[in-house]
């Protein structure tokens, strides 16, 4: 997991994105990204079950692939129905799957384990299968 986070931070640095892992925030405060300033805040106190790696990948996706005009600040939410959030979920999974499964042949890939280690809820199944098999 540390490898994965380092890889994501490497992507952030290469793309001129600043990332902060903050311990000052309340448990209910979401992670944030501000695309116009290329900044990401990850709340380390969050009571979210989703792994930090996925949350980081998600916020990075907003900045890397999102449209700036649509929202000015993005807040992480695992149950969000907004299209911008769903797209960021998909992109985040693609980003992680590409890294994790780069040396694994398709027939050995297990997207259920993949989802479990990232702490993703079951309705991510379709998205996860697609991301893992296409990685």
């Amino acid at each position: 997991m540390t490898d994965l986070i380092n890889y994501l931070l490497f992507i952030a640095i290469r793309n001129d994105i600043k990332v902060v892992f903050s311990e000052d925030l309340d448990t209910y405060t979401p992670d944030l990204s501000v695309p116009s300033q290329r900044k990401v805040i990850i709340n380390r106190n969050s009571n979210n079950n989703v792994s930090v790696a996925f949350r980081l990948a998600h916020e990075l996706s907003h900045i890397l692939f999102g449209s700036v005009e649509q929202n000015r600040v993005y807040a992480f939410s695992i149950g969000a129905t907004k299209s911008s959030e769903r797209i960021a979920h998909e992109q985040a999974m693609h980003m992680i799957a590409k890294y994790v499964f780069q040396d694994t042949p398709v027939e050995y890939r297990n997207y259920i384990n993949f989802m479990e280690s990232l702490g993703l809820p079951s309705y991510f199944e379709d998205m996860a299968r697609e991301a893992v098999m296409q990685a």
Partner: protein
Amino acid sequence: MTTFERIKEISKQRGLNLKKTATEAGLSENAIYKWKTQTPQSNALQAVADVLGVSVDYLLGNTDEMHSNKKDAPYDLKEFIDSTPVLKYDGKDIPEAEMRIIRRILEDMDD
């Protein structure tokens, strides 16, 4: 730095030479070299800015911010957060005290 020097520098960072940059932008091979002496046309400059992934303003030397989306945001961060439509999370407002911390973190990131 002049426009020509800026284009040259960024092209180098992107691993392109000026001829390649020009052709990718749909210009003639030596178009950019002409900009040493001539003022470029706005549509040609826009095409080059798109290829290099920077703003036209940056190429012109009006700003040191490479990315155009930065210039849309208010310059002052406090202003920016205050002008951001009420931030909600799962339908709930983020408390003012939390917003203050977030604002401070964002400001600290600039150091």
